[in-house]
């Protein structure tokens, strides 16, 4: 089977705390253990990071979204221009663009780069960050809005005739787009609450989880499959993890400890509403599950390390697999065995880790050929 690997895009360079010892300051959006260097929008760096991912064998990079970040559509176009086959998973928060316009924007990007665009729908997020962009709805309301939003987006992508829509949040009349995707744009979806699963089951082409222990992922896959079945859908599954790899297992664990130490030193986790966490925020339920796992044990399964999640509040993708490339690949294949076919991996030193992951990706792809997923 084909395993999809997703990495991360960024527009601002970073340096690790080791490289700039003693430096403090705002933590980068890309890593808890590094500090940003240079302009917020650094075109050359964005291109280099994208090319590094492509060379390492990644299929896509995630383009994240917060209320202070550069516009994702434009970053996506930069990434796609800088590479030949790498795709993007472009995060989008419903509620800030008219769904018809959002659909046209995604379709335009996809027409310029056929087959290389996917949408990651972020609903849960963080109330304070939603309010910065003027959204005051509560989370259950946001999920109902996402449902309505995605319904209009799909109509805009697919309808060859003018359509009307009269939903709880969105109403359009006589709408029709001249620009439609050349191939379907897959919709990725995250969220652990009941509301999330209900809406995600209805709309998701791929359902994304944070890196819980295997048992937790098994549960969640079952839950989402049950929610999707009534709609005749069977989404792919994605797990997000932060591998820490080194040539020996000892070196990897030493690196993990150093990263934890750096994270504690830098200010990132002290300002929880400003860190990368809000980018992928599933907030309450997802964080509760991750924190429960972190409090239960520091290491789950073979090598799922939760200390960083515990230290930073468990409100984002913050669990790590620690070991040699072979060991990390083996641990990733355990998720593949559960039915996971997309692995979102990002590190702590974006450029260097993307290179280090090349071997992991190669090993997982080779291994996945001989693994059989659990029957549906």
């Amino acid at each position, binding site marked *: 089977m084909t395993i999809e690997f997703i990495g991360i895009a960024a527009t601002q360079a970073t340096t690790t705390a080791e490289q700039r010892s003693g430096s403090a300051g705002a933590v980068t959006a890309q890593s808890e253990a590094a500090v940003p260097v240079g302009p917020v929008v650094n075109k050359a760096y964005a291109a280099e990071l994208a090319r590094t991912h492509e060379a390492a064998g990644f299929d896509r990079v995630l383009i994240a979204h917060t209320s202070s970040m550069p516009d994702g559509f*434009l970053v996506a176009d930069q990434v796609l221009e800088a590479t030949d086959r790498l795709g993007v998973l472009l995060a989008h928060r419903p509620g800030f663009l008219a769904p018809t*316009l959002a659909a046209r924007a995604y379709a335009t990007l996809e027409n*310029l780069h056929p087959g290389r665009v996917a949408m990651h729908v972020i609903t849960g997020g963080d109330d304070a960050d939603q*309010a910065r*962009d*003027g959204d005051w709805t509560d989370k259950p309301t946001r999920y109902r809005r996402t449902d309505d939003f995605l319904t209009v987006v799909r109509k805009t992508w697919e309808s060859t005739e003018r359509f009307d829509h009269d939903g709880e949040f969105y109403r359009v*009349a006589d709408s029709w787009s001249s620009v439609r995707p050349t191939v379907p744009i897959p919709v990725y979806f995250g969220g652990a609450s009941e509301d999330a699963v209900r809406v995600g089951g209805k709309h998701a082409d791929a359902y994304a989880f944070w890196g819980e222990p295997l048992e937790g992922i098994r549960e969640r896959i079952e839950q989402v499959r049950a929610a999707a079945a009534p709609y005749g859908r069977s989404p792919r599954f994605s797990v997000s993890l932060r591998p820490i790899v080194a040539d020996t297992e000892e070196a990897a664990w030493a690196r993990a400890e150093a990263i934890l130490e750096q994270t504690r030193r830098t200010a990132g986790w002290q300002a929880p509403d400003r860190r990368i966490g809000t980018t992928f925020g599933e907030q309450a339920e997802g964080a509760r599950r991750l924190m429960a796992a972190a409090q239960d044990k520091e290491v789950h399964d073979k090598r799922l390390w939760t200390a960083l999640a515990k230290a930073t509040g468990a409100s984002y993708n913050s669990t790590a697999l620690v070991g040699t490339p072979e060991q990390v690949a083996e641990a990733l294949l355990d998720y593949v065995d559960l039915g996971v076919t997309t692995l979102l991996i990002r590190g702590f030193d974006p450029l260097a880790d993307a290179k280090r992951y090349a071997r992991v990706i190669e090993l997982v792809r080779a291994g996945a050929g001989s693994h059989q997923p659990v029957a549906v």
Partner: protein
Amino acid sequence: MNDLAPTYDNVEILGMIGTADSSEIRQRSGPVIDPDYTRRFAQVHEEGGFDRVLIGYGSNRPDGVQVAHHVAAVTERLGLLIAHRPGVVAPTVASRTFATLDVFTKGRVALNIVTGGTDKEQRRDGDYLSHDERYARTDEYLQILRAAWDTSGPRDFHGSYYEFEGYEPGVHPYDGRHLELFFGGSSPAAYAVGSVRADTYMLWGEPLAETGEQISTVRQKAAEAGRDRPPRVSVSFRPILGSTDAAAWERAHAILGQMNGAAGAKFRDSWKHLRGGADGPENAGSRRLLAAAAKGDLHDRCLWTPTSAAMGGGGNSTALVGSPETVAAAILDYVEIGVDAVLIRGYEPIEDAEDYGKNLLPLVRQELAHRRRTREVASA
């Protein structure tokens, strides 16, 4: 000398691009987004010496921000004037989008704020506000954009249409520059907002007298609002050139024939919603164009209105017909009454842009330089 007398040396020439070969007389045959065509279209404008190109907005069109980003990569200096409708995007999000684009393009971005034309078109994108409310919303929207671009730090906003707390943009326009706002609209509600918020006020090509009236209105409103300088003014036309005036007129009549025939059928149909009921089109700009057309076909030096009447007054649709010399002189007539920019586009999109660049723009620039020098000599 009047402070607002033409300065001649800052006159801008704007064009317009699209993503496929199509116009009132040309039905698109290829894909909606033809990347090669789009690139060539932009490059022709740059090579021809245009200062900027407008990228339009429509409820069925490709996303203009991405079209702008795409053509920026294949041009060096061409300005990108992106039509944008408040009401379909949160203003904070839009502020980041255009700031990001401005940084990636190293300061080539401007916005053309189009508040809306007709209720029907707005509803296609889910906007159900009334005409005057739309302008009230635009007023808030533009204040938010301006502040997000020009100032740093967290801020709150509590308006009638927008409310947010703690917004702190992480990206600002390139190198601290002023990102310009163009603005269109010819209703009282539009004048009230645009005269205060716009850097450049966009008008469609009416006769000189009517254009002068609008310029006066905008200047008066700006003065009432306490602005030091009123907005600059841009006027849009569809020049139809020929090697001689006679050849141009022959071509103009042929184009009108195509518009009214099979070639124009689809386009005429797409403007149907503008025509409205017994009172005519909903939007003041189209009503003004039709009023001018009702007075006669030919105005001033060579402004021709039947092309506009054929499309129900839809959009930039009045023509300047003649040899390059005649049309250049007509453009200068507008400069003399206080116009700072002209937007020109043809009915044969790429071919006309190329023709303008080769044969019309040099004459306009030359005449501007001549009049500037003449005035310098006269006042020396």
